[in-house]
């Protein structure tokens, strides 16, 4: 009896330890498990870092430095003939308006007793965005009754001032910069104190068109958002009906023959063709051969439709396949034709799955960039495309292309814009994906 109680509870070669061999194996087990966790943490960590840097860089694009001061729209300068005739007034160029704004700015500083010591008149005008005169001119030309009134206006400050407010421009960099000097930054500090300079929400970032290299402060996403919206609309109209029709044929009607095999192989191969190849196709077929205009949303949509088609077909076929054969049998049994069975019963039951797949396909289409570069959508466009249908042939850009275009400009202020554009793009993607997930949750059916 006593022998039994004294016997060791764990055998010498238990997997819980004991022998050196077992310890080695268990250590290997622990290491292996650790590798897996490290791999997952690296992947998710990099994702988090990427999103964080982009948000950190981009969120400031939604705020913009603006100078607020009264401007007297003197008719002596703006309407020298004094007859409020628009054609006559249009002879005053933005240079005239620029001088008017600069003078008003200087007058305001003098009136508020803000010292402008050591700053030339040219530097003072340099605090104001070169975009401001154009905006004011368009406004006055649209409404000549503004003449000879005093308007309290918020106008864009220059890109460097904006950069100073956002920490991109410091006194050190200003030393080496010919567009701004430390003295101007001192004045900027005084302007903030006096409440003339502030950085309110920047709705123009979402609405105004792109601006040239020299004025990052005025660049906006208006044309890009519109262009992307046109393209997505067209892609949905082209891709979803064709994709659904092709899937119905392949799932429900296609006989097992050579043609069907060729189609199947083509669809799976097209899904793996690099996107840039579709750009070459678009350039050669739609622009050079068919003669559609470059940079137009129509060509972009056609190219992206061809790219998205395999994705949508694969998703739709899965949704159709998920409808149980009993439904088809029942419909055929009460005398429906094959076509009626599909269109009256199978398709409606597969619809939630099809919609989910279509939205996810559109979401990936929205982020597609490379093929659009080749069909000219990377061009600088500062006019809004017209309303459809004519607008579908007007030059436009797209959100992801705008990200690329801004990222390749030299002024660091455009990196902020580029990141801001990504935030907008990701917001659209999140909305689309969440919609797809909610649709799936709501209509998902287990047979």
């Amino acid at each position, binding site marked *: 009896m006593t022998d039994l109680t004294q016997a060791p509870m764990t055998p010498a070669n238990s997997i819980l330890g004991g022998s050196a061999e077992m310890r080695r*194996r268990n250590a290997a087990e622990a*290491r292996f498990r650790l590798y897996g966790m490290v791999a997952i943490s690296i992947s998710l960590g990099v994702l988090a870092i990427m999103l964080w840097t982009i948000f950190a860089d981009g969120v400031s694009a939604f705020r913009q430095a603006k100078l607020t001061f009264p401007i007297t729209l003197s008719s002596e300068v703006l309407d020298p003939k004094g007859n409020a005739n628009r054609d006559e007034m249009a002879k005053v160029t933005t240079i005239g308006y620029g001088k008017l704004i600069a003078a008003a700015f200087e007058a305001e500083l003098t009136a508020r007793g803000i010292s402008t010591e050591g700053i030339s008149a040219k530097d003072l005008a340099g605090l104001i965005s070169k975009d401001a005169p154009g905006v004011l001119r368009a406004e006055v030309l649209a409404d000549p009754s503004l003449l000879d009134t005093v308007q309290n206006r918020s106008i864009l400050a220059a890109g460097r001032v904006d950069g100073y407010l956002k920490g991109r421009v410091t006194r050190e960099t200003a030393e080496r910069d010919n567009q701004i000097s430390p003295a101007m930054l001192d004045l900027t500090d005084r302007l903030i104190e006096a409440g003339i300079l502030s950085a309110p929400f920047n709705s123009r970032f979402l609405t105004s068109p792109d601006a040239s290299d020299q004025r990052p402060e005025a660049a906006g996403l208006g044309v890009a958002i519109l262009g992307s919206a046109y393209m997505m609309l067209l892609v949905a109209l082209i891709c979803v009906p064709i994709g659904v029709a092709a899937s119905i044929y392949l799932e429900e009607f296609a006989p097992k023959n050579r043609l069907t095999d060729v189609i199947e192989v083509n669809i799976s191969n097209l899904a793996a*063709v*690099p*996107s*840039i190849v579709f750009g070459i196709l678009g350039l050669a077929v739609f622009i050079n051969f068919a003669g559609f205009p470059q940079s137009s949303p129509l060509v972009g949509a056609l190219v992206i439709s061809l790219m998205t*088609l395999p994705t949508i077909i694969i998703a739709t076929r899965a949704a159709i396949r998920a409808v149980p054969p009993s439904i088809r049998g029942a419909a055929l049994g009460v005398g429906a034709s094959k076509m009626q069975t599909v269109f009256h019963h199978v398709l409606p039951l597969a619809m939630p799955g099809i919609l989910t797949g279509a939205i996810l396909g559109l979401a990936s289409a929205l982020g597609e960039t*490379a093929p659009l570069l080749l069909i000219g959508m990377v061009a600088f466009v500062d006019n809004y495309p017209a309303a459809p249908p004519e607008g579908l042939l007007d030059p436009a850009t797209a959100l992801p292309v705008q990200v*690329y275009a801004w*990222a390749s400009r030299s002024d660091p202020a455009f990196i902020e814009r580029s990141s801001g554009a990504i935030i907008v793009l990701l917001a659209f993607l999140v909305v689309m994906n969440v919609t797809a997930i909610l649709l799936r949750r709501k209509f998902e059916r287990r047979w």
Partner: protein
Amino acid sequence: MTALTLVALILVLAMAAYLAGRRRAVSTAAGDIRKLHSLPGYYGWFAALAAALPALTLLILWLIAQPIYLERAVLPDLPAATVADDTARALAMADVRRVAGGLDTAVATGAMTEAEAGRIRAELTDVRSRLAEVGVALGTSVAPETLRAAQSYRLASHSAVMMRDIAVIALALIGLAVALTLIRPDFRARNRVERVVLGALIAASTIAILTTVGIIWSMLSESLNFFAQYPAADFFFGLTWSPNFRGGSDLGFLPLLWGTLYISLVAMIVAVPLGLFTAIYLAEYASPRLRAWVKPLIEVIAGIPTVVFGLFALITVGPFLRDYFAQPLGLGTSGASVMTAGVVIGILNIPFISSLADDIINAVPQSLRDGSYGLGATRSETVRQVILPAALPGIVGAVLLATSRAIGETMIVTMGAGAAAKLSLNPFEAMTTMTVKIVGQLTGDTDFASPETLVAFALGITLFVITLGLNVFALYIVRKYREQYE
């Protein structure tokens, strides 16, 4: 009438045809629809299709044929010297079309009467300034021959459009009339309509074939143009890439291939271990709750547009690698490098490899695991010695698919790899890839006659062949070995 109005008119006609066909079916059955072969709606659809389909087909053919016919009609008016070859003819025709369009605008805005537009002579009037008044800008002043050609172009196109409208509408009406005479209670309308629908379904599914044909045709024809101007051997075996738009370029493909393969190699060195260990952990170790959270999060990476990764490479990864690795090691001073692009492409490919590998690991039968555990193996031993060998062909297939994606990736390399074509081993040096050069040669001002532009098509078809070959090979491996346990 514009083509769009005509289409709208046909559609209205088709709607009327639907109602007429339906009513006719019901009335031939004396109101008792049980006597009809098909539901009344099918008779309506039949009538609508009979009215719209032939008319729309004719319209499409006409729209294709009309420019060719008009060119024929106008060519005799132009001096033979200006239409000597195809390019000159296209330019001359573009001029004629622009002047004709200008005359149309002038008539439409009331600046000219119809008779005046047909009568004015370039010898007597300054046509350019007359057209400029109505906002039609012409580059050069108008030659008398061009103006005359434009006037006959207008006349011919007006009569052609008139004839088109009449023919299309007549065909729609004939189609409708024929359909209505065919409709009787025993007419099998449903079968006819369904046959048309089936035709449409087949047409939709052949788009995939057409796309492939389009890709191959467009790239092959331009590539042949390229190889007619630039020797193929120099392209495929050339060691320098220095395009020069004034001619005399070296367009050697090997530096680009090297850059592409080097970057893909770095990408796979990053993506394969990370993706594989992620998949193994999720499939074999993770609790269902952890899996439910981590798997979608990893897949978020796949949903982010590549241009975002491109910006990440440009502003974060590139400077980081340069400041902490390349410069301290004395290997380079460039933010754009093989490492930058490779690492970021690798990260992009993690979810791709992990989800494919996850599927493959889960497809390994549980009995193999149970057998291994029963013999006393630990989990990691089971994974390494039983599951991975069983899943190996599938995993190799997944890695090949991921490599093919890395080779075809464009935005990340455009933003992160640089533009200098080099044959170097230093991973911290900027190199370039086929995709970067396709973008480079085809954006901006391009001249589709010069080899410097056409080389992009040769690069494109090479890229297409490489990626397609990898894909076909990968799918072959995956398919061949997946069936082992089924």
